[in-house]
């Protein structure tokens, strides 16, 4: 039977992995490759790796991040190189599970470069809104299976309505997520990465209403993201209809975190890959 997927999300910024708070304050979690190796060993079902660098500072010789070390720099320079493609290449070498790469994808060439360096899928966000036919062109050229449409949603608490945002959650689009996700499916997206902005980093659980509405409306798999604070939240996300459950913070700071979450899920009857 098809196993529900558990997916750690990694954020890359200016040469290091970071923890993000409110999209503005970033704290270093360290080396951009090392954690990929660990997550793979810990039986993650897939990884989502998002580039949130602002100024194209991919070279640590120009950036100021020291990658968690007072002394390793002299020898450990291999992937602190010229561009994000070299980072993708370095992590793909270590990652024999599916790897989705996102961030700053605006042209078919951007997609091609990422796939060529070892990504299996790309996630596309703002560009899908700016030019919807881009999803179709990418799906036709590279196959629908490698086009993940990423959708950021905010809940307006006064009106109790969901709305799609773009540009790192900064710009409102006026779109209803259900209509938008249906449209993305028609355009050729193979999966939807559904992120709740207001739940992000809050550790209060997924936006289950949102997940239910979207999964009922589309027939492609939906990956839920945003809000996980404990193991039970993953179960709720799956019960709401998500094919895969993703999270960032909960996986980064404890030993064998993915394995432990999977052991929990298995103990409550969720058939994850162990």
């Amino acid at each position, binding site marked *: 039977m098809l196993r529900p997927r558990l997916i750690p999300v990694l954020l890359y910024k200016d040469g290091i992995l970071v923890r993000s708070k409110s999209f503005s304050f970033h704290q270093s979690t360290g080396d951009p490759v090392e954690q990929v190796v660990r997550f793979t060993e810990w039986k993650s079902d897939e990884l989502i790796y998002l580039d949130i660098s602002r100024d194209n500072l991919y070279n640590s010789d120009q950036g100021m991040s020291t990658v968690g070390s007072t002394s390793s720099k002299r020898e450990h320079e291999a992937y602190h190189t010229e561009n994000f493609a070299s980072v993708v290449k370095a992590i793909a070498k270590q990652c024999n599970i*599916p790897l989705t790469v996102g961030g700053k994808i605006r042209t078919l060439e951007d997609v091609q470069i990422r796939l060529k360096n070892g990504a299996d899928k790309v996630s596309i966000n703002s560009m899908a809104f700016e030019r919807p036919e881009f999803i179709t062109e990418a799906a036709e050229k590279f196959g629908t299976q490698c086009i993940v449409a990423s959708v950021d949603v905010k809940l307006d608490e006064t009106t109790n309505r969901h709305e799609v945002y773009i540009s790192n959650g900064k710009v409102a689009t006026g779109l209803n997520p259900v209509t938008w996700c249906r449209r993305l499916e028609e355009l050729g997206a193979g999966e939807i990465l559904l992120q709740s902005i207001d739940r992000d980093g809050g550790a209060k659980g997924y936006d289950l209403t949102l997940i239910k509405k979207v999964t009922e409306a589309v027939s492609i*798999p939906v990956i839920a993201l945003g809000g996980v604070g404990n193991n039970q939240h993953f179960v709720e996300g799956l019960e709401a209809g998500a094919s895969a459950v993703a999270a960032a913070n909960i996986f980064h700071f404890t030993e064998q975190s993915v394995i432990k979450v999977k052991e929990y899920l298995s103990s409550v009857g969720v058939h994850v890959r162990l």
Partner: protein
Amino acid sequence: MKVCIIDYGVGNLASVQNAFALLQVDAVVSDKADDIRTAETLVLPGVGSFEAGMNGLTDSGLIEVIAEEVMVKKKKILGICLGMQLFATTGFENGEFAGLGFIEGSVVKIDDTKENIRLPHIGWNDVTVVNGHCIGKGFKNTPIFYFVHSYHFMPKDIGVVAGYCDYGGEVVAMMQKENIFGAQFHPEKSHIDGLQILRNFLSC
């Protein structure tokens, strides 16, 4: 050169190469007939539609040399995902197209009329190993592999099936016919179980 990964413009070749690198096996990505001739074994990867795959192969001009190495010289070949589907006689994705015809059978859409069957079939699925083929050896527990596809291979002779998975019914997950091996899933993306398949392919 131990392995030649055939580049016909379709699919993620880097992942396949990376997986062989993890096994410390020398694998080269190439679109040259000479490399296909000199390699000990061949891998035909591929994602996308059946038609695009056959067009890619035709445009690359490699069909003849692959057919000769595989069908005449009996060189080992592993088809991955679309690569395996192209071994079929006919593909029925968006029309009807002739395949390589290495294994008799057709490629049709997975039945998605049942409840909870979403297409594409994306994710990790258990594979029941059958018929005792060499490609399915060495698993203590039921192996689990990563799949991404909407169409599946229906072989005429079910004896060539090496494993099934369950997705709205039986879906052929791996095949073996003499020197021809196929995986509908992605062994290069299926962690430890996937590497075992690549090891099996090399040692079968």
